[in-house]
């Protein structure tokens, strides 16, 4: 990947990431994150990991982000206080400083690794579906089969958790149909 293209994609990823954590509207947060994910997918393809790049876009943007959007729309969360509300100022300050220190520490560690500066060429088949599948279904076969169990458990768990129980139905079921309730609306705004 040429250097200018990487610089462009990196800038786009950082803008999207900042948008994810700074915007007030939750839908905008999710869209900012979707931008980061598509961007990372393109970076993976530039690194030769074509299959993983496409999987990233299909699974993350196509499935996980849509799930987030559905939940935001289902809960009907209008607006958020954004960064101004939320955690106390001291916590924000300490958090920002700690994260900056973490980034600085990682930069120092990486800059002391001279092998990271070398550029290596890769075989043309690197990252193709066939190569990935070969590794996945030989050395990582057991792990691959175990993930199917994990997904099954996640499906059952999600349905069991989000299911409306018989006892709690009446008041909660009426919730979306009463948008005029002032107290509820204001609480939702605060949230």
């Amino acid at each position, binding site marked *: 990947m040429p250097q200018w293209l990487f610089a462009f994609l990196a800038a786009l990823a950082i803008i999207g990431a900042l948008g*994810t954590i700074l915007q007030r509207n939750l839908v905008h947060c999710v869209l900012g994150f979707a931008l980061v994910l598509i961007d990372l997918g393109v970076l993976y393809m530039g690194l030769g990991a074509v299959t993983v790049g496409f999987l990233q876009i299909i699974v993350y943007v196509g499935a996980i982000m849509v799930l987030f959007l559905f939940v935001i729309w289902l809960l009907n969360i209008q607006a*958020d206080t954004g960064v101004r509300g939320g955690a106390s100022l001291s916590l924000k300050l300490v958090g920002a400083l700690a994260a900056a220190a973490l980034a600085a520490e990682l930069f120092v560690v990486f800059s002391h690794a001279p092998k990271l500066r070398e550029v290596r060429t890769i075989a043309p088949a690197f990252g193709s579906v066939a190569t990935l599948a070969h590794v996945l279904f030989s050395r990582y076969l057991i792990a691959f089969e175990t993930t199917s169990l994990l997904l099954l458990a996640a499906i059952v768990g999600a349905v069991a958790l989000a299911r409306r129980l018989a006892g709690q139905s009446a008041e909660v079921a009426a919730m979306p149909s009463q948008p005029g309730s002032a107290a*509820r609306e204001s609480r939702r705004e605060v949230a």
Partner: protein
Amino acid sequence: MTPIIDYMALSALLFAIGAIGVLIRRNVIVMFLAIELMLNAVNLAFVALGRRIGSMDGQVIVFFVMTVAAAEAAVGLAIIISMFRNRETVNADELNLLRW
């Protein structure tokens, strides 16, 4: 060609932004998104380093991380829905029933 260290720097930056997001926001959905952002930052490091050593293992691990992230998103969002049903809030500071 871009050296791998640039990818690692981007990965570190994205991870730090995700960490800030978890710390400064109190909305559980945004905190969840920030956690996913950190997962993706690490994925980028895996792919970049896997390319550096010429091994497919990094990509396979990214594949598994994606699967776990999908399961995590499904269960986590179900928990958020169930929390919102009971307390009508997604603010982490108001969900303090178990606080000592």
